[in-house]
């Protein structure tokens, strides 16, 4: 752009002629109306503005934008502006752009928010989220009550599909993680215990850690990433498609129909998966013990049975049951409360996994504190 595409000529004392020349293309950038503004500012007597397009070449939106800006400025300074000499297309497009004025109060300003604002709205948000989650938990409990009375409406096939998906289909990943977990525990224990000639206690270490903590927690975290996320995504996209509304219209409670079978399936499968994870973890520990420490299978098992009482296993199992509820609830809650857009579903899925894992760890800590205080 070597040449000026806009020049200003004073026709008479009170008339300013704006000569628009050459090619206008948005790839050249937009013209700033500041020079026009300077001209009318420097000549306060100006009352008429004329736009002359006699030397105009090709044009596009960049020119429309400029003309609209001149129009607005002229109106602001009570000048009469004449654009009728412009090509017809421009006149019509400008008219179109100005045809529907901005409605009062419709514009949303993005408010500047201070730290205090953010803190306040954060607290309000967190409180309402918590209340909503508690409400959701209550509704799910009522739904289980209806299930117990045989009044809950949901499809039995759904339940079996979820059972299949949460149980057998998850075995591969649970196997892999649990075996590796057992091996890591055995390895870490072996390095330390070997120094005291107490290698045999590796069996106790692996058994205790798996039974009481790791099997339940690792399974729950896997299921949170696998199933909790899937629940949130499924229910979220059903929200987007108005399927949840359709269910309500058919007189079906979405909680009974969608949340109940999902939660039930996970609560039933999580303890089973945890038992399986225990076995696999112990197996992983045994592999390391036998390979590194010259223990025999018999010694390993014998040691484990004699030093790890059943109560640790029961505590682990109890936790896995609660973890199942927590993961299913956070997945379903986030899905049911998802916004109605593609990005909202993604957000809901992320939130479901984060909330699930936080709840798992928090609950696990609580159980540890309580059992320690009680001396269990």
């Amino acid at each position, binding site marked *: 752009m070597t040449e000026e595409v806009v020049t200003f000529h004073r026709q008479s004392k009170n008339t300013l002629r704006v000569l628009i020349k050459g090619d206008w293309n948005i790839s050249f950038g*937009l013209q700033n109306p500041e020079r026009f503004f300077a001209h009318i500012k420097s000549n306060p007597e100006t009352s008429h503005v004329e736009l002359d397009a006699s030397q105009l070449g090709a044009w596009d939106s960049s020119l429309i934008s400029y003309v609209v800006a001149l129009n607005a400025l002229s109106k602001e300074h009570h000048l009469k502006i004449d654009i009728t000499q412009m090509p017809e297309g421009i006149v*019509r497009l400008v008219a*179109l752009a100005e045809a*529907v004025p901005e409605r009062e109060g419709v514009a949303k300003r*993005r408010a500047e928010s201070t730290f205090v604002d953010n803190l306040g709205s954060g607290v309000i948000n967190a409180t309402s989220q918590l209340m909503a989650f508690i409400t959701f938990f209550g509704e799910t409990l009522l739904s289980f009550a209806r299930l117990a009375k045989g009044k809950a409406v949901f499809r039995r096939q759904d339940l079996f599909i979820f059972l299949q998906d949460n149980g057998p289909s998850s075995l591969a990943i649970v196997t892999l993680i649990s075996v590796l977990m057992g091996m890591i525990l055995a390895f870490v224990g072996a390095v330390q215990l070997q120094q005291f000639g107490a290698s045999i206690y590796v069996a106790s270490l692996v058994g205790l850690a798996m039974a009481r903590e790791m099997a339940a927690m690792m399974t729950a975290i896997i299921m949170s990433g696998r199933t909790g996320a899937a629940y949130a995504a499924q229910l979220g996209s059903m929200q987007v498609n108005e399927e949840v509304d359709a269910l309500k219209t058919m007189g079906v409670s979405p909680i009974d129909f969608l949340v109940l079978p999902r939660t039930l399936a996970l609560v039933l499968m999580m303890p089973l998966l945890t038992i399986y994870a225990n076995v696999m973890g112990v197996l992983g520990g045994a592999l390391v013990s036998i390979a590194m420490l010259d223990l025999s299978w018999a010694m390993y098992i014998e040691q484990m049975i004699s030093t790890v009482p059943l109560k640790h296993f029961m505590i682990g199992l109890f936790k896995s049951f609660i973890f199942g509820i927590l993961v299913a609830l956070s997945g379903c809650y986030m899905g049911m409360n998802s916004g109605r857009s593609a990005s909202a579903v993604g957000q809901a899925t992320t939130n479901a996994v984060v909330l699930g894992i936080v709840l798992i760890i928090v609950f696990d800590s609580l159980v540890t504190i309580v059992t320690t205080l009680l001396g269990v």
Partner: protein
Amino acid sequence: MTQTEAKSQPHIRVRNLTLKYGDKLIQKDLNFDINRNDIFIIMGGSGCGKSTLLKHMIGLYQPAEGQILVNDTSLWTETEEHRQKMMRGFGVTYQAGAMISSLTLSENVGMPLELYTKLQPKEINELASLKLSMVGLAGFENYYPSEISGGMLKRAALARAIALDPEILFFDEPSAGLDPVSARLLDDLILELRDSMKATIVIVTHELASIFSIGSNSVFLDAETKTMLTTGNPNELLTNCCDDKVQRFLRRGEMGKSDMARSKVGVEI
């Protein structure tokens, strides 16, 4: 805007076009011309492949056979880069709006400008506001697509389609789901844009009111024979075309006396 080019030349030419999804034949032997400044209607019963044809014309899918020539250049014989460049001259609106839900209207409209021009962010915002005001959405810059009504969403999609001042505008069911008054206003807007931007317009629709009021040329696709039955101005087709299916379509299934019996069977609109 290339007003200087020869106006007598057809803007888009479709030659022996065959459309397939995998092995499934959708339409075959399509031949028609779209002139500059036409409002070209693609019509036909549900499921006959109207949207599929549109998606081939905008270069989204490659045709199984035949050519689509825009300004005498085939979409698919040139390099990928050249096709991308040609596609930038098209503005498209999709059936459900297809606005990116995580972006505000202003960001949605500004996105093509951001991608394909070197404009400053402030200039992009300015142009996006201009386009939104052209479709009657002044002041809605900071709204998200989920916060506005269906009719407004269609208008916003139109604003995005005209962001780069396209030569050809494609609409997939622009007035579907709109009340008659909004549909009429949208038709008027399309006409106004055609006249002022000197654009060529291709519309997929089965709204008879729109077809007759704004269509200047059309093609009729048939689902059974899997080919086009006729092409021409819809108003002339109404009086001149003697094909039963076309007549039944254009008259909402209401035929002359002699055809009454036949029209009761298998009316599909």
